[in-house]
């Protein structure tokens, strides 16, 4: 079993790499979005799953990355790959600015603080109209690069998963988890919890920033409502919870399953869809708090680093 997994993974990766040669434009777009969701769910997992500090406003980093990279493209003429990385850097910077004061708070208070974040950023975007286009939105120069963006998204999704793997199997990851288990004890045992929380938070903001930029580039147009929607945070959370927060592959699994679900239900029944997401969150918390992967871990006695 252990030998076969990396092989299966390599085959899958090869398949995904060759996919655009065969697929339609629509097909590429769909997979591109799946990669995006994997990156997002995985990122939320880094802060909320590992340290237990729930972030209810994570979409802020997506939106910030979208605006930052789009502004870099439009006003400074940067090439989109670099601009998207820039978006990630700006998002991480925002995470530092928010995290430095707010991560000192106990878990629930931090969660509340992140709740209002969305509103603030939408206000900021409207305020700096000259730069961001305010409520009218921002248009990017036309570009047909779906295939390139597909690969870029795939890379980011793979990178975040790889980073999660490295963290979960290291002492750094153990320290993050102690924050979730018992923060008082962690502090008493010499762990500078604020510093570790900040690291996790910054890391968790980078990928959303990058994929925000990529998504914006792909759409060609952004406006406040499209890049700071609450449903995006909700979806990230549901995916990570459903698959298994605190694990490596949980968010990937959750993203894959719920993304398929979303494609089928979303377009036609948007409110029912969101209602179901809410119900799934409630169900997971009550019935399988460790997600699907958690259930499998218990049943088949799998190691924690899955």
């Amino acid at each position, binding site marked *: 079993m252990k030998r076969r997994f990396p092989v299966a993974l390599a085959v899958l990766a090869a398949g995904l790499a060759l996919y655009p040669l065969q697929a339609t434009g629509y097909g590429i777009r769909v997979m591109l979005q799946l990669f995006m969701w994997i990156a997002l769910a995985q990122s939320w997992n880094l802060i909320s799953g590992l340290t237990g500090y729930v972030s*209810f406003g994570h979409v802020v980093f997506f939106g910030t990355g979208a605006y930052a990279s789009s502004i870099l493209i439009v006003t400074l003429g940067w090439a989109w790959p670099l601009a998207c990385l820039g978006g990630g850097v700006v998002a991480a910077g925002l995470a530092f600015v928010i995290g430095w004061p707010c991560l000192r708070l106990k*878990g629930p208070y931090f969660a509340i603080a992140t709740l209002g974040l969305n*509103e603030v950023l939408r206000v900021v975007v409207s305020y700096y109209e000259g730069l961001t286009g305010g409520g009218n939105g921002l248009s990017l120069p036309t570009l047909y690069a779906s295939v390139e963006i597909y690969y870029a998204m795939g890379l980011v999704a793979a990178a975040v998963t790889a980073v999660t793997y490295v963290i979960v199997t290291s002492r750094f990851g153990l320290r993050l988890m102690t924050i979730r288990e018992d923060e008082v004890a962690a502090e008493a045992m010499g762990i500078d919890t604020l510093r570790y929380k900040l690291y996790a938070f910054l890391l968790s903001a980078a990928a959303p920033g990058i994929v925000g930029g990529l998504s914006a580039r792909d759409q060609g147009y952004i406006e406040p409502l499209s890049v700071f929607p609450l449903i995006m945070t909700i979806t990230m*959370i549901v995916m990570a919870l459903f698959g298994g927060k605190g694990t490596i592959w949980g968010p990937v699994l959750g993203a894959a399953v719920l993304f398929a679900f979303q494609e089928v239900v979303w377009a036609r029944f948007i409110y029912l869809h969101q*209602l179901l997401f809410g119900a799934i969150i409630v169900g997971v918390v009550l019935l399988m708090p460790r997600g699907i992967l958690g259930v499998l871990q218990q049943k088949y006695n799998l190691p924690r680093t899955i």
Partner: protein
Amino acid sequence: MGVLITPSMIGQVVISGLLAGSLYAMVALGLGLIFGVMRVLNVAHGPLLMMGAYTTFGLFQWIGLNPYLSLLVSMPLLFLVGVALQRFLVRRVVDAPELSSLLLTFGVSIALVNLAQLAFTSDLRSVEYLTGSFVVGPFAISKPRLATCGFAIAITVGAFVFLRSTRLGKAIRAVSQSREVAQVCGIDVQRIHLITFGLGSALAAAGGSLVAVMVAIQPEMGQVYTFKSFLVIVLGGAGNYPGALLGGLLLGLVEQMASLFLTSQVNEAVAYVLLVVVLLVRPTGLLKGRV
């Protein structure tokens, strides 16, 4: 900027601030009770307020019931909803890590908002009952705001009398201070939890019924109240019920004052900045609270 601030403007701001603040205080008290007794941060508090508003709207629409009389319906109704939520959902996570109850109530809030979307669509509704203002000297006092303030004060005072003087109220305060000790004194803690969640929801519903007369009713209307109620609890100190009153009034004042200097857009960020500042400077609240 560059506006001349006259004393009468300040007076107006103070009046408007206190009127708005009394509503914030009442709604926040509901959230504060739940948090104080069960250490659960009820993210679904706003949606419960929204349900109160829709109840009032429905009754007004179908049988022309006076919105202020509808309080007699919305409060008991949402009390029962709160009890049900506690009994079937929240009870299971009261002793789990706080993260669980946060996520649970978050899920519940999403479900409630979207149920409302399905039932009522996102069309804006309103209850046209009371409009206009009294003019007293240089001040304009909005009639619906005044009525809201009056009822909010009455309900809040009632809540405090209940907490202070009745056995049940004292039991609630006892559990909020120490669950173990209360149990040893023979208090049925489970029952107290049920009642407290119901009460908290009823207070939210009251807020909803009262604002139904003043603002546009739509499924997402409650979100901002969730956040502001949290802010009031933080300002007043967690578990400090009189503190919630002061916190509410303070928030009302600060918001109105900010509106003198800032555009309405930026105003929304005021509450947020206030929260972060208070959390950093005095996390135990302006009065003594238990973090």
